[in-house]
């Protein structure tokens, strides 16, 4: 570090910029690495670096500090500010952590599912997607959010379509249309806010909105932003691209995106809803997150119900993701410290749970060559470790106590119970949806353990490079369900800072 310091460049002081710049610069370099496993090793290295950076950033802000980094030395509100507080440091850690743990897994999955001459492009897309998501999260500038959103979206379309299954292409295209609509809605919202206030800096926006808040333009901006963001995170009924997208893209993409993409969009919703519009009295009676509540409830009921009837394992998981997004939005919509804690902690909890499940599904796919549930008969005997991990993570999806899923649902139900009769109804529906989750997880258990494998199949256990990340996440599902100190405390602190409540 001494040479860097002597050149007037301090690594630690520039961490916020490096968080985004490292993967951004790495992506084009990756396209030049065309030798075997080169792109993969490079992406893994870069991912490890970004993870290290976000871990460091989280350490720095955990005490309650806020890092404000001036991009290019231009002071906000004129320059672009990168702003790290508890909540986005938490999201940064989730995103870079999932990327780091998904990449070792990706090696075998990509080898099988992506044509060999496209590997360098695939990993470049991965890094760009990572860069975009980190950028969305870290930036304190509203327009910058749009730009990074598009970087991550464009690379997502590419990743979704990078496999061999043609059904992924149409899903990617559907997402392209919806995602562009959503992003452009966000752009309109940001534009209207800029017209009304003359600033793009989020912290500055929050202050300047006060005098003009009771205008149609600002209401329209809030509406455009909310709808645009909801389109991005596939809230019911804008979900239809998601099942095919996750199901027919390469397994590693499903792992990475299911655990990160929607989470980042939810973070953007939180940011606008609470940091920008949170302080405005005119919005007290017209809270857009609350308006999303009915959609969220329908999302988790419909998502869980449809999941039961799927015959394709990855589609089943994707439908369950739609339901889980509903839980997160429901938590945010219910509001209050408990509600927000439920929403935020579920970002993390669902990330590790669903990543583990998609990993197990991908391992099945690698060995069985099909995702049809009937083809998985007796898989518990032929791939015991993968199946056990799947079942254990499935328990977390249901929300069994001692898993992370329980923690989320507990807070969600507590938050719901504070809302009188309607709240009781929502709590009842959360429980009903959990019951549906029992049914779809149980279907797999029954097929895996209580049916005999087809005689002519030669199936062996998944490779170690898949098992290790899978089990790391599975153990995480239980570890963080028992030792909730880390996740819940951070989520609670984040919720309090968003609401401006002193702990």
């Amino acid at each position, binding site marked *: 570090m001494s040479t860097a310091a002597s050149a007037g460049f301090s690594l630690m002081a520039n961490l916020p910029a490096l968080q985004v710049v490292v993967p951004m610069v790495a992506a084009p370099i990756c396209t030049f690495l065309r030798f075997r496993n080169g792109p993969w090793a490079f992406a893994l290295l870069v991912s490890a670096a970004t993870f290290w950076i976000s871990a460091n950033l989280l350490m720095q802000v955990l005490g309650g500090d806020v890092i404000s980094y001036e991009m290019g030395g231009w002071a906000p509100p004129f320059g672009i500010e990168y702003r790290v507080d508890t909540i986005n440091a938490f999201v940064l850690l989730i995103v870079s952590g999932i990327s780091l743990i998904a990449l070792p897994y990706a090696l075998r999955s990509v080898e099988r599912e992506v044509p060999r001459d496209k590997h360098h492009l695939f990993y470049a897309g991965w890094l760009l997607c990572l860069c975009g998501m980190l950028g969305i999260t870290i930036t304190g500038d509203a*327009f910058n959010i*749009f*730009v990074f959103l*598009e970087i991550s979206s*464009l690379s997502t*379309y*590419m990743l979704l*379509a990078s496999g061999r299954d*043609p*059904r992924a*292409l*149409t899903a*990617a*295209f559907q997402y*392209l*249309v919806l995602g*562009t*609509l959503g*992003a*452009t809605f966000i*752009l*309109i919202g940001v*534009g209207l806010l*800029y*017209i009304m206030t003359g600033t793009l800096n989020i912290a500055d926006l929050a202050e300047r909105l006060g005098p003009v808040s009771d205008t149609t333009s600002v209401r329209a901006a809030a509406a455009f932003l909310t709808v645009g963001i909801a389109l991005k995170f596939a809230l019911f009924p804008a979900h239809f691209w998601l099942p095919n997208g996750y199901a027919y893209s390469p397994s590693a993409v499903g792992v990475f995106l299911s655990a990160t993409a929607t989470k980042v969009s939810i973070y953007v919703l939180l940011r606008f809803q609470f940091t920008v519009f949170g302080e405005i009295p005119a919005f007290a009676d017209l809270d857009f997150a609350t308006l999303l509540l009915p959609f969220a409830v329908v999302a988790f009921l419909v998502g869980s119900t449809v999941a039961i009837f799927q015959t394709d394992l990855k589609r089943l998981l994707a439908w369950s993701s739609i339901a889980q997004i509903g839980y997160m939005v429901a938590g945010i919509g219910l509001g209050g410290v408990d509600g927000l804690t439920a929403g935020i902690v579920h970002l993390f909890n669902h990330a590790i749970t669903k990543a583990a499940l998609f990993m197990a599904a991908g391992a099945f796919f690698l060995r069985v060559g*099909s995702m*049809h549930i009937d*083809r998985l008969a007796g898989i518990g005997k032929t791939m015991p470790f993968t199946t056990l991990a799947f079942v254990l993570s499935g328990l977390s999806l249901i929300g069994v106590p001692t898993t992370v899923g329980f923690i989320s649902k507990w807070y969600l139900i507590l938050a719901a119970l504070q809302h009188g009769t309607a709240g009781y109804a929502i709590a009842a529906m959360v429980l009903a949806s959990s019951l549906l989750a029992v049914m779809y997880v149980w279907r797999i258990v029954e097929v895996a353990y209580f049916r005999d494998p087809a005689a002519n199949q030669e199936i062996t256990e998944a490779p170690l490079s898949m098992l290790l990340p899978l089990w790391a996440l599975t153990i995480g599902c239980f570890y963080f369900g028992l030792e909730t100190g880390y996740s819940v405390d951070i989520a609670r602190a984040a919720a309090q800072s968003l609401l401006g409540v002193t702990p």
Partner: protein
Amino acid sequence: MMEWLGQFNYYVFAILMTAGVYIAMSRGNLVKKVVGLNIFQASVFLLYISSGKIWGGTAPILGDGLTQPISNPLPHVLILTAIVVGIATTSIGLALIVRIKEAYGTVEEDEIAEAEALYEEELMRAEEA
């Protein structure tokens, strides 16, 4: 009357935006969808750029004797970025369409759905065999 004229840019924006979204949602042809998206995005570009315009304003070039009011350059810069994003979206969209055409032999949404159903049936038959 003057007020209407003063908000002329917003009306154009609204009309283009609605038209663009309508095309993107309603057309069955994927290429037309992409065109609709382009119109939609262009409308937003207009919204930004026109908001930076001031009657009688000049280009914001710093130098001596700048006495006139100047137009706000920031929206222009932002839209430059957005245009780039728009082009990228269009190109990825078209690239996807090419691959969809290769896979299913059509770019019409309903025909793709049929081809996809056929593909799934074939898969099922292969599974059983």
